[in-house]
């Protein structure tokens, strides 16, 4: 269980270039993730509390997968903050995908603030058995 091991399939990276002006002013929250791989593909789970399904944006640009979403707590009544551990209202994290993954077939689900992404491997990248000829 070493998250920092040579992850050839998927490498975590910090968001580098900030695209929109809104994100420039407020730092984004980096959601914690679980990433695991089996023979058929990669599963990514991300904690995104306070994110509604319609606000979640998952984008694939070339080999870059970006998860972006605003954190909303519902009604904006006149609350005076007393104590805050979550000090930003925006989640963002991006990942570099490897070429053996099929980015066209990514499946995403959001339930109770947990995003589940399933990224299947491209057909030719799936492990197969190679027959050894007897000579």
């Amino acid at each position: 269980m070493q998250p920092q091991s040579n992850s050839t399939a998927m490498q975590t990276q910090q968001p580098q270039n900030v695209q929109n002006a809104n994100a420039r002013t407020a730092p984004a929250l980096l959601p914690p993730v679980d990433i695991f791989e089996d023979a058929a593909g990669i599963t990514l789970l991300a904690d995104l509390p306070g994110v509604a399904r319609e606000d979640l944006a998952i984008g694939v640009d070339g080999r870059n997968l970006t998860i972006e979403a605003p954190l909303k707590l519902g009604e904006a009544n006149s609350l005076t903050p007393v104590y805050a551990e979550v000090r930003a209202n925006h989640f963002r994290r991006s990942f570099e995908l490897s070429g053996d993954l099929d980015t066209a077939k990514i499946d995403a689900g959001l339930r109770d603030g947990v995003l589940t992404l399933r990224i299947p491997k491209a057909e030719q990248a799936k492990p197969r058995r190679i027959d050894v000829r007897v000579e």
Partner: protein
Amino acid sequence: MLFPSMLRTSGDWFADFEQLQDRIDELLSGRSMTSSIRAVGRAGAFPALNVGTSAEALEVYAFAPGIDPKSIDVSVEKGVLAISGERAAANGAAQGTKSDEPNVYASERFVGKFRRVIALPEDAEPARVEATYRNGVLKIVVPKRESSKPRQIQISSGS
């Protein structure tokens, strides 16, 4: 030997630096010399908490995604609000097509039992606490006592 000369400074340069470091740590961790005996504290604990107050109520937001709301226990005892529960590990094997062990590349999400406590202010009314769970955020509303709410005082004319 380049560096020993840098280490021989006249004043207590390192002590100054350490003090600065302590100050930065203090600011970042939200810790200070004087804090409440029942401070919420523990930044980085699960679930993260935000607390806000309005004229009518104290609102606590617990960022606890991926938990069955029925398994979250919210209780108030002697003026202390406690949130406890457990979050199960994501089962990688169950999601794959084969039963073999998946390769784990990241395991940052919290797993296990949790419990966080918040001391309620004196004017809180614990009998009418309401909790709702939506999109992975548990919102707890603790109303304030009627007598402590701000009210307008009528000025009567003395004629």
